[in-house]
């Protein structure tokens, strides 16, 4: 059996990589991918705890998180497409006005 600490360490590393990606990159799509990495880190922690507690509830939560992530991707990519139509750019440091 895999120790729960391994999974948690992996989850922490994955979340950190996601945070660094959001902070370092300026392409909105890559930032979005980093957000997906963070969501998956959370999912991994859920699964690891579900395993160590011997409970199924954590896996049910992962199911819900995946649903919300799918919805988020659809909305976010629609926003990026719209932003690109408006500004011809998806670089977040060129998008600094609320006015369209």
């Amino acid at each position, binding site marked *: 059996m895999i120790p729960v600490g391994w999974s948690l360490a992996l989850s922490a590393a994955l979340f950190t990589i996601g945070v660094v990606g959001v902070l370092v990159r300026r392409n909105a799509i890559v930032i979005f991918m980093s957000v997906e990495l963070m969501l998956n880190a959370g999912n991994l922690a859920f699964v690891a705890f579900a395993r160590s507690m011997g409970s199924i509830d954590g896996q049910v939560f992962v199911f819900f998180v995946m649903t919300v992530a799918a919805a988020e991707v*659809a909305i976010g990519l*629609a926003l990026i497409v719209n932003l690109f139509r408006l500004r011809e750019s998806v670089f977040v440091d060129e998008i600094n006005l609320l006015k369209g």
Partner: protein
Amino acid sequence: MTAQILFAALAAVLVVSSLLVILHRNPVTSALFLVSAFCSLAGIYLTLHAEFLGMVQVIVYAGAIMVLFLFVIMYLNLQHDLETGVQTAVRRGIGWIAGAVLLAEAGLLVSKRWAVGPIAPPEAVATPGNTQAIGIALYTRYLFPFEITSMVLLVAMVGAIVIARSRRERGDEATVRRVRLSALPDSDPRVRTAALAEPSAHPEGTLAKGDRETYEISTSLGGAVTPPGEESSR
């Protein structure tokens, strides 16, 4: 023992490919490394005896979400992410330092021994079959959240369609034409046709200023003025 070796190997693949996701210049390559990361995460779910989630991970993330990402990247025809300038370097440095601090915090958290309660025998989850167990939990205890999930997906679908519709189709012209028609005193169809075909054919003042601006914006975007016969089909 085999599961632990498998876990370590998959974790190495996962970490390396997620690092490449955030480090690679080309967004398409990043997306492909993200597919690799999701697939190795699915393998990790399998080693953790979450078989259903492993399969869902491959289908939903590697299948659906990544295809959406690649579709958008290729639709936008992005150039490489060119990074130059001192400000960018400073920002990158701050980002890496913040990430290192966060990693140190996470390491501290993991290195502590936390009491997580009694560790159940692994057979407790695996005996009825993982998919069956999740199904039973979803349709009994979590039935209401499960139904709410459908609402989340519906709202997301409608929202994505509304947001991503092109400006030309969004109804700017239709609104302007409706305003124009309601502003016309005469209901003679020939007058209406003339007013629709030529914006300056009717006297000033029948349109409010905002409506004129909307009309100019929609025409400057290259929107074709449809003949009035198509009005009812919209």
